[in-house]
Each structure stands twice: as structure tokens, then as C-alpha cells.
């Protein structure tokens, strides 16, 4: 019986340490884990590079960093309402991982110009990442 109580306590403590997954999306400018009902985004640094990884509900990695983005230059991520992930960097430029809703897969589009007000979602333009937009 004591063992069962201990097991329950351990399980309870573990559930307390779980992410609450109440992140509503939007701007990411700090390292950490961000979780909502659909996605879990991990943002961290490795060898002075910014790294990010996005997992779906099943725990499968759907997006992974594909460029060496310097952490010493300005950067920011943004998850919009369509679950597209915007990656903005003064080092390498700007990109968006677009969700293909029919397959659930993400495709990356790199922008070979400065982002403008019309090329980004309004909520991104209204966020503090407006700094990156001309």
C-alpha cells in the first residue's frame, strides 16, 4: 500500500512538472518551450546558433532548424493563427514554415527581400517583431 501511495505521489509530481500547454501563440524571443493544444515548440541555443524544433500532438518533429542562425544578431519567431511559423533573423533573413493543412506537413519559404506589412499576418505586423518589417 505504501508503495502505491508513493507511486501516486510520484505520478502527481510528474504531472505538476508537465507544461500546461496554454500558450496562445504569437511572439517568441526567448529560449524555452512553448506548448499549445496542437504544437510544442522548443527554442534553444547550441554553439552560438539559434535552434528550434516543432513537434505535433503525436510528438513527431514537424519542423527543425535548417540554417545556422547566429544568436548574436536579432531574431524572433512567430506562430500565427494558421499555425505557420515565421522565423525572422537579422543574420540570415526571413522565412516562414507554411502548414499544408491537407497533409499536416510544413514547407519552408525563404523571402529574398525585406518583409513588408502586406506580406505578413496583421498580428505579426502589430507585434514587437514589427522591427523586422519594412
Amino acid at each position, binding site marked *: 500500500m505504501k508503495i502505491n501511495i508513493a507511486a501516486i505521489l510520484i505520478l502527481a509530481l510528474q504531472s505538476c512538472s508537465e507544461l500546461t500547454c496554454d500558450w496562445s501563440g504569437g511572439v517568441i524571443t526567448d529560449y524555452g518551450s512553448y506548448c499549445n493544444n496542437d504544437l510544442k515548440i522548443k527554442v534553444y541555443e547550441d*554553439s552560438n546558433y539559434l535552434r528550434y524544433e516543432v513537434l505535433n500532438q503525436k510528438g513527431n518533429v514537424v519542423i527543425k532548424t535548417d540554417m545556422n542562425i547566429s*544568436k548574436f544578431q536579432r531574431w524572433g519567431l512567430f506562430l500565427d493563427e494558421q499555425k505557420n511559423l515565421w522565423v525572422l533573423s537579422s543574420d*540570415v533573413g526571413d522565412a516562414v514554415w507554411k502548414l499544408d493543412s491537407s497533409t499536416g506537413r510544413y514547407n519552408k519559404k525563404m523571402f529574398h527581400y525585406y518583409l513588408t506589412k502586406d506580406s505578413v499576418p496583421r498580428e505579426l505586423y502589430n507585434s514587437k517583431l514589427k522591427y523586422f518589417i519594412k
Partner: protein
Amino acid sequence: MYVSNENPTLVDVYFDDVKMSYTPSNILQSNEYYPYGLQTVNSWTRASATGNNFLANAGTELNTTSQLYALEFRNYDPILGRLHQVDPMADKYASLSPYHYSFNNPATFTDANGADVLWGLYTREEFARANMGRDQAWSHGGATGDLSPEAMAESVHSPSVGKWYRVSTVWQVESGYRDANNNFIHDQYYYSYNVVDTRMEYVEGEIQTGWFDDPQGEFFFNHWRNGNGQELHLNSVEWHNYMKKNDYLATVSIATHLYGLNIKNSGWIKGSFHGETGKSDWSSGYGMLNGSNARVGDLEYFGYAYVHDTGSVSYLLSFTWNDIMDPNAAYLGDIIGAALFSGTPYNVHISWTDLIHIEPNK
């Protein structure tokens, strides 16, 4: 002193109270140029000093024996205003002689390596950079022992750019230009360096010695702090060599892209891709560049690909690294000290030319 007696017979010559004095000038070398780079008779170098042959055409070396500028790809003859070998970019400028120099317009353009003409005028920051490079070249000539911080205060006309710059001392560089009334207009860029082997050590100013891995990193940082966002076009020989020296960029980033082109026939190529220096620190020029920026053009190239019979390909390419310098001030504050540094982001474009050879995959 030399005395000549022109009399046909020997006649004693007497002098009354001859006095000879020598007042050394602070100036070690003064060069005056015609527009195409030939020096006028007013040029001179103090007898005891080793001449600096890197003063014209964006710091390229004048071979004092042949009187040709020894550019990396060709030799330039400032007397003729022509290069001695055919322009490797002849097809690009089909309307011009393949031996032309700087589009026959040396007041506006320059040709630092003989591979391609550098477009546009140098910015004032580049003057400072180019001067720093010349200081380095001078020190390699072994003449640093002759120089004092008080030495040299001269104005030199730079023929390749049609502007003026002033070298105040070997260690102190002050850049500027002449206005319509020939007044020297001092600009805000002032660098003070002490030459230590092949790197320059900062000895004055707010930034302490040793914080930067190379002068290029310090240059980028200082321009961020003091440049008011002015765009930089860096295409001097010093920057050309700096970019060529990055092994990761050449052997991994560029070579991988070129290999992926899978070229089978000789011909002209152009394009752009994401380039990386392989460095991610904050303190070196390579680290600050880190990756080219897609917003402003990424890493662009143009040139010729020659396919050998063996299948290997030789590329003669002009590259332009397009980037944005926008450091994260909070990081710099953490690293450098308590003070939070601030600056203005700016675009930077660095051009160089390289000859790259890629073997087929066997």
C-alpha cells in the same frame, strides 16, 4: 652636397661661410598621381625610409622594377592606362577593349585585382579600412622602426577614386575628402592602431585591446556604433583577401553549391545562395557575418565555369556577400561589460574574386 666646376682649367673655388643644415621633414613619402595611377615627378620617398608601394589603386602593389601594378589576375600599366593581359570578364564588357582599365574612367571606378572593375566610389569607411591595410603592408616592409607616432602628416591624392585621404601617422588614420574649395573635410571615422605582427591591436578609444579576434570584427562593431546606419560596399584588396581566406566558406559553403550545379559544359554562370563562414562568435569579422542575408541578396556570384576533359570544373567567379549587421545589443552588454552598447543596423556588401577548382565525384 655636390659641387661642379665647369671651367676648362683647374681653378680653385672658395666658399665663404658655407653652412649646410638638414631639417628632416616629418613626411617619409609623398606620392602625387596622374589619374591613371602614374606618379608625377613630385613624388618622393625619404632616402632612409622603405617606400610604401601600396598607396594607389585600392592598395595594390606597384612593382618598382617593371613600373606595373601587380594585380592578382593581371598586370596594370599606369603609363598606357591599359592592362597587359586580356580581361577575364571580357564578355561582360563586350563594348570595351579587353585591356581597358576601370572602364577608362579611373576617377570613378577602380580595379583592385584585374578580374573585374569595382563599381562605384569608395565609402569613407573604406578609406579608413584601406589605410589600415596599407599600414599593415608597410609594417611588413620592415620600416616600422623609422616611424614615430608624430611622423607623417601629409595629404595624398588617391587616383583610383578621385577623392582625398590623409594619413596622419602610421598608427593614426583619419579619413575625409576635399570639398570644392580644396579644404580637407574631416569625417568621423578615426582609428588608431598599433601594428603587431599580422594583426592590428587597438590602442586608443573605448574598446579595449583583445576584445576582438580580428580588425574586421572591430571594424564592423565600430561601424555599428558610429556609422549611423550607412551602407558599406567593401571591395578593397584587404577585404578580397579576408573573404578568400575563410576555408569553410570556400571549401564547404561555396564548393557544395557549385558541386550541386552539376555543370557539364563550359560557360558563364550567375546566381545566389546562402553562404556561411562557419563561425558564430561575436568577436571576429567572420563571426559577425556568420551567414549571408537573403533580405539583401545573400551570396551572389557571377563568372565563368570551364569544364575540363576530365570532368573537373574550374570557376573564375566574382562574389558579393550581402549581409545586415544588426547585433543583439543585450548579448554584447553581457559579454563586453555592464554597459549596454547601442548602434544602428547597416547593410554590408563585400566583393571578391576567386578561382575554384572542383573535381568530379569518383
